[in-house]
């Protein structure tokens, strides 16, 4: 079981085989997707027709629309980036204020509130989506009836997508940032205060720098989860589709390997974020 205990040979072999099979299972779809991005064929299917970069760079002259020439796809990537940027900003800011609220304040109903903050994590994304869709429409109707305002941002569209994603991603950023604030040694604040720092200066020079790794970490996770979100987004999109919704539509219709090319692009981007995050994490531990 553990290194200090003897394990029979068959068990050790079985473990290695199982782990290897597991890894194949994990990477098979990804490798497949990546490989067919470079296949010189009209559809992402075997057999292998030879290597090409058409699905990245191709244009009308070749009869194939590559990723970089596909206005629709490139536009949806931009849309996703825009949404993710807003979602990240809101989630990290509110996650940070929530962390201070839960760790530094004492008030009645705090236990209930901290429980409430976990609830969004166990609500299926589709339901978050429809409930926000319905509620926003009702509020928009109300504003229209009472004040005659046309609250366009409460109708399906990117602002609603941002609200929908934020509704559960704040829970994640709150958990990460609170966990770090809980471990903070408060005498550091006292020491800074004692050395002549004002309260805002203590916050800016001691507490927030301490929280920075957790803020960066949760920003990366939230950004990624927003970029990848599908369930909630699908219910709230308007005219502009983020990438996942766009890809979904094309996958239903049977798409060209340009989708594989987007996927390769996403893998590279995710890897870059992961590497940045690990470096940030290494610095944060110092």
């Amino acid at each position: 079981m553990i290194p200090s205990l003897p394990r029979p040979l068959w068990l050790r072999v079985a473990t290695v085989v199982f782990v290897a099979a597991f890894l194949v299972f994990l990477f098979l779809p990804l490798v497949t997707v990546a490989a067919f991005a470079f296949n010189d064929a009209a559809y992402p299917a075997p057999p292998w027709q030879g290597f090409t970069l058409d699905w990245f760079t191709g244009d009308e002259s070749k009869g194939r629309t590559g990723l970089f020439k596909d206005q629709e796809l490139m536009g949806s990537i931009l849309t996703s980036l825009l949404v993710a940027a807003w979602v990240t900003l809101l989630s990290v800011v509110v996650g940070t204020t929530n962390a201070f609220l839960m760790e530094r304040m004492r008030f009645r109903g705090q236990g209930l509130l901290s429980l409430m903050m976990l609830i969004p994590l166990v609500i299926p994304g589709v339901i978050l989506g429809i409930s926000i869709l319905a509620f926003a429409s009702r509020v928009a109707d109300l504003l229209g009836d009472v004040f005659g305002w046309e609250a366009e941002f409460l109708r399906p569209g990117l602002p609603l997508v941002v609200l929908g994603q934020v509704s559960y991603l704040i829970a994640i950023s709150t958990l990460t940032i609170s966990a770090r604030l809980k471990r903070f040694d408060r005498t550091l604040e006292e020491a800074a205060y004692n050395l002549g720092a004002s309260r805002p200066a203590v916050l800016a020079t001691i507490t927030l720098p301490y929280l920075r790794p957790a803020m960066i970490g949760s920003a990366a996770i939230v950004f990624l989860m927003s970029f990848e979100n599908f369930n909630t987004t699908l219910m709230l999109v308007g005219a502009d589709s983020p990438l996942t919704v766009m890809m979904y539509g094309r996958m239903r219709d049977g798409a060209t390997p340009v989708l594989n090319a987007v996927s390769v692009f996403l893998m590279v981007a995710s890897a870059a974020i992961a590497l940045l995050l690990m470096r940030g994490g290494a610095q944060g531990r110092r």
Partner: protein
Amino acid sequence: MSAPQDFDLEAKSALKRFGTHTAVDSLSFGVKRGSFFSILGPSGCGKTTLLRMIAGFIEPDGGDIEIGGRSQRGVAPNRRSVNMVFQQLALFPMMSVGENVAYGLARRGVGRAERDSKVRAMLERVGLPGAESKRTDELSGGQRQRVAIARSLVLEPTLLLLDEPLGALDLKLRERMKIELKQLQAAFGTTFVYITHDQSEALVLSDQVAVMNAGRFEQVGSPQELYYSPATPFVAGFVGANNRIEGRVSAVHGALVDVATPEGWVVRAQTQTGPDGRKPGVGDAASAFVRPEVAVLGRSAAELDLPPAAAPAPVHEGVVESLLFDGANSAVLLRETKTRAEFRVALPQTGRYADLKVDERVVFSFAPERAVCFATGGHG
């Protein structure tokens, strides 16, 4: 008595209560400019509350605290000319050594160039020249301590508070840092207020020591005064090692009394006025305190080598219970022959009696003038 303007710190009936518990009980005292003042007491005696009150982290419920002659009522901690070395040092882990030392200067808006030169000079003075760019976790325990002190002293405070900074260090380093702290204080001339539960730190370091118990000062005095003339039974028991013999006064001989234990052992000691202003009289419950190094040991009465004293010293008999070898601090634990009362005697540095055996019969004695006796309770 010094004039009040010589005080860097003066407490006037400072009071702090937590619920029904009085942590600091109407304390008044002054700390002279440039002195090393220690507050010594067991944990829970209120010394940390007092220190945090001086730093401004706790507002007193009554009375006042003056620093540099100015009342600190309503003055926030970041506006007091008091700096503190925290128990766990509280060095900022996200900053380099240089940034730590420069922190207070930067908050005061001191320019970069001046800051850098002050930091450099200060690190040199504490024996860490060129350590600016080091990370705090690269330093040894002693070096971290010096950074914590440098960080405070660079602000030239009126008062430096130290909250048991040696508590976390191992024994060897603690001994060295004691000496280093004393030298630093002498070199800078800043007034140090040091709190500790370790009586050896307080005795070695301080010009003045206040022994604190249950929110009050039992005695304030030089280390020598505390050691040789404790004002209360608490001080006698807390400062240095002491044999405590409890019983009732059976006879009074001028300044000396005989204290008889319930088992019938009688020792003679000098009476001391207790905290209630009373001296023990015949029949009073009393405690006698005899330091192990005051007592002498011999295999026979003739061997006893007592210093010349005004009164004859009674000789007691005992058997060796156990030998406590500890280098220069070696001692022997005896039991008085008739009453089996425990008594500790320091062994002479000469190595004499190093060959004592358990159960060996010995005699011991001490000059009554060097033992103290307090009345401890009612007359009976």
